[in-house]
Each structure stands twice: as C-alpha cells, then as structure tokens.
C-alpha cells in the first residue's frame, strides 16, 4: 500500500488510472450479446393450433387482444402469417419486455415446439407469409455478388453496407445482421418487422432473397481481409482509432524518446 500511495503522485498515475477505467468500461461493454436460433416445423395439426391458442392467450393476448385482433398496445396479428411469429418469437423480440421505440432481440422465451404452436395458431387466423423452406435458404445455390447488389440498393441504407446496423429516428435502429440465422433474415424480409418495410416476392424475388442471404453469410464467413474491422462503422471508428490508439502510441514513444535514462 505504501508503494501505491507513493506512486499515485507519479505523473503517469493519472494516465494509468484513465487507461484502467477505459479498459474496465470496454470490458463490461463487450460482455454482452448472445443470439439464439430456433428451428421451425412446417405443417400444423389441429392440436398445434389449439396449444398455440392457449400459449397466445397466456402470453400475448394482453397486448394483441384475446383473438389477436390488436389493441392500443399491440397490432392485430390477423394475416401476419407464421413467418412473422417465427421471427418475432424466435429471435426473442416477442413477448416484449416493455413498450419502447422498438422490440429488441433478447434470449428466446419459448422452445421450438411452442414457437411452432404459436405460429400455427396465428397462421390459422388469416393467410400470411409462411416459414421459408430449406431450399429457399440454401446458400450453396445463391449468388453472393448478385445478392450484394440487391443488398446495397434495398438494405444497406439502414443496415450498413457491411450489415453492421444503423440508426433510425427517435431511438429506433436497424440491427446488425451478423450471426442472424438465414431463416430469420428471410422472414424479416417477407414480413417487415417493426419499422422495416416488407420486401414481398414481387419486389425482391425469392431467388434474390436467397442471394442476399448468401451474400451476408459469405461476408460474415470470410472475415475482414485487411485486419480487425473496428466494428465496420466506417470513417468514424477509423478516426477515433487514430486519435486514441495511434496518437497514444506515438505520444508514449515521444515521452520515452525525450526522457533521460537512469
């Protein structure tokens, strides 16, 4: 302790303290984020629908109404289709923890069977987009370059050209697409969750959607050729990096260079 109290007067003590604080903050920040995946079955039985109805009444009806007709707190779910349920519940967005600018991904609340039952119930209320088949998600059949073009025109303005996410108005945002499953990407496109527009098959065809997914999975798998990508946030993170790390190292060297050796 004595050594510590002496060294706290050292000119570098403030720098060390600052660095420590930054490291702790950064570490806490990084200890966050887990994405869950869920698989869904197709073809619903009457019992699925019945079980789904029970789950719905117990977990969803408060906001969406007893018959999914919607209320002041949540939209009607008639005609949103199984894909919407599979996306919203399968990514943990629903049930919502609290009302906010937008529903956010969080740990999934139901198991696969329950999600499937809920989807069965909601899809029985009215026709809507169904959960995509494996074939529509098969990235080995897709064309990454064509998908990239479609992605840049239709998606990059909100989700960022490297799919790192971006801001919308008043606290809403477009999330990062890293580690989102093929199925959920597809379902998001066909259902348009929250403020995301709908991209039906006449706008972006099923093949083009598969291309987009292929593109996303390819850039995710290949990694960044130039080294650490600094969040893929573009010039802001690059500028921040050169002003903190870059100039920091330079200043450390200048201090060493002009100091007197013992």
């Amino acid at each position, binding site marked *: 302790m004595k050594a510590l109290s002496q060294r706290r007067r050292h000119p570098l003590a403030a720098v060390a303290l600052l660095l420590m604080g930054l490291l702790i903050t950064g570490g806490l920040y990084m200890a966050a984020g887990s994405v869950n995946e869920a698989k869904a079955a197709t073809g619903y039985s009457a019992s699925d629908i019945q079980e789904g109805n029970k789950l719905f009444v117990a977990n969803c009806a408060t906001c969406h109404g007893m018959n999914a007709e919607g209320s002041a707190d949540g939209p009607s779910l008639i005609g949103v289709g199984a894909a919407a349920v599979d996306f919203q519940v399968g990514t943990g967005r629903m049930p919502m923890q609290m009302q906010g600018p937008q529903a956010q991904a969080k740990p999934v609340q139901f198991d696969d069977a329950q999600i499937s039952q809920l989807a069965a119930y909601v899809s029985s209320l009215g026709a809507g987009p169904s959960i995509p088949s494996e074939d529509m998600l098969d990235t080995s059949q897709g064309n990454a370059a064509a998908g990239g*073009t*479609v992605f840049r*025109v*239709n998606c990059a*303005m*909100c989700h960022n050209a490297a799919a790192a996410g*971006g801001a*919308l*108005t008043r606290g*809403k945002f477009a999330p990062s697409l890293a580690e989102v499953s093929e199925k959920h990407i597809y379902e998001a496109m066909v259902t*348009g969750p*929250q*403020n*995301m*527009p*709908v*991209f*039906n098959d*006449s*706008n972006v065809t099923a093949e083009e959607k598969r291309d987009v997914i292929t593109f996303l999975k390819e850039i995710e798998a*290949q*990694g*960044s*050729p*130039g*080294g650490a990508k600094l969040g893929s946030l573009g010039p802001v993170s690059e500028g921040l990096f050169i002003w903190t790390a870059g100039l920091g190292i330079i200043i450390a060297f200048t201090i*060493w*260079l002009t100091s*007197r*050796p*013992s």
Partner: protein
Amino acid sequence: MGDHSHGSPDDSGTVAKAGAGDLDKFQDPGLPPHRKRLADTDPHAEKRAERQVALLFIISIIGTLSFFIAYFVLGRPEDISEIRLQNAMLGLGTTFAMLGIGIGIVHWAKTLMPDHEISELRHEIRPEADRQDAEQIINQVVEEMGIARRPLIRNTLIGAIALAPIPAIFMFRDLDRSGKNAGAMVEQLRHTMWDTNVRLTRDPSGTPIKAADVQLGSVFHVIPEGLNDLEDPLNEKAKAVVLLMRLDPALMHVSEERKDWHHDGIVAYSKICTHVGCPVALYEQQTHHLLCPCHQSTFDLTQECKVIFGPAGRPLPQLPITVDSDGFLVAQSDFHEPVGPSYWERGSN
C-alpha cells in the same frame, strides 16, 4: 502600435529587459547540475546498453526477413483469410524492421551518446546594419530602374500584367464537356428521364412494377424504364431514382393539385435529398417517415414528404404516377420541380 510613451522603457523588437518592478524578482539559478547516467559510470551498464542496441538492430534484420517470408511463402493468396494473414505478416515484418532500427538508434543516442545539454545564444534575426545595407541596395535598384520617374512604363506594365492571366481563367470554360451553352447547362438540372407513360421499374433489374405488387408497408427502389440501356446511366440515375410506397389512403393528407398524383395510395417520391443530394432511402413503414442516412433529414410521407426534422429545407418532389393499360405503374409526367439539392438558379419552380 508604436505608442510607447507610457509603456515599458525598452524598445520594440528586443528581448524583455529588466523593468522597474523586476528588481524584486528571483534570480535564475542557471542550468541544474548534470546528473550522470548509469552507463557513464558503470562499464557493465555501458556494455549492456551496447548489446541492447545491437540486439534491436538484429530484431530489425529478422523483421525484414520475415517480410520476405510473408511475401514469398504465402505467395499469391486466393482465400480471404490468407490475404488477411499475409497482410498482418507483412505489417508485422515491417513493424519489427522499422521499430528495431528506430528504437535501436534512439536507445543508442539516449544511453551512449553525450547527454550534456548545451546552451547556445540566439542571434538577432535582423541586425540593424544589415537592414540599412539592404535599404540602400533596394533604393539603388529602384533608382537605376527608374520606375518611379517613368510612370508611363510603370502603368502600362501594371495593365499588361493584370490582363495577362485572364485568358488562363477562360481556358477552364471547357471543363464542362457537355458542349452546351450556359443556359442549357443549368436548364438540364430541371429535367429528368421521367415523362408521360415512362414505366416505373425496379432498381437495379429494370423490370416493370404492377400496382398490385406494391403492398402496404413495402418500399420499391425505382428507376425509369430504359435507364439501364443508356450509355452513361449514372448521370440520369442521379436525378431519376424514386421511392415507391403504398399508404393507407385514409392516412394521407393530399393537397388539391396533387389529388391525382397517386394511384390508390401508391405514391412515388424522389429519392434524392433536397439537402445535399444523398439518397433518402430509409423508409420506416410504421411511422411513414423517410430518413436520409447522411444528415438525418426526416420527411413525413403522409404530409407529402414535408420536412419534419433535420437540415433539409424543402419537401421531396413527388412524381405523379398512374397505371397503364397493362396494369404497370407509369409516370404521368416529369417531376414538376427540380430534384435534389437547391442551387441559385432554381428559384420557386
């Protein structure tokens, strides 16, 4: 300035002198005594420093060699992860090569070269004698030229020199390669490819869009039909790109003169921001807001794209649309106002 009657007694241009109040000032104790380094007194420390410097230079040599290894052994990588590895190894090789030399030299200078600080006197930047000599020379030059005595020569020379660079400015007129005259150049900013019965097609495929394809909540990125066939499509595309959305007609506040511009709630607006021209591509389907990702101008689709936030000063121009006999969406006409950022000649339409 030049008014020193009240100021300190010393002249301008000289260094600070002792004033009246300076009598009560601490004396400069001079440079602190020189402190010897370990390497100055201890031959072992000196030897150690020498070895450290040599070691650093050897690290540099190893760094350079590892650069070659990365360059030749990894060859021409095809795979992205190999490119990353090669880039990192080239970088680290260079880092060691350079830091080895740099740190080595500095360490050498710090530990083994003399570290006595030396004091050197500053010199006057402009000695008065020099100034007088220079003044004399200049006076002589001016006198021998006789420019002061011959105003005719002087004035015509000034005129000639003032005029001579002006052609150079005009040389730049043909930076504009369109060959149009000034009026036509500016006029082209008012028009886009859109015209009566030009079909709205998807960007980038160029396939036409049926009204029935556009469902509530969706957004189509649209280019005029035939754009992809142009020789230089980007110039026209930079003005003609359009966003196509369908709204519940009950939500729309349509002004009288625009009541025929939409088709059953399907509206088309210019995608080019009226602020500085970024694509206003972000459509929030629940709030019906359009947001520009560059400077966050926000437009309310239900109020004919009025600006509700951000730096844009004008609503996005609306493209009047209808459907043709095949059910495809077509433009009724060009935009009724110039698209994109404002410019001096724009005026109110």
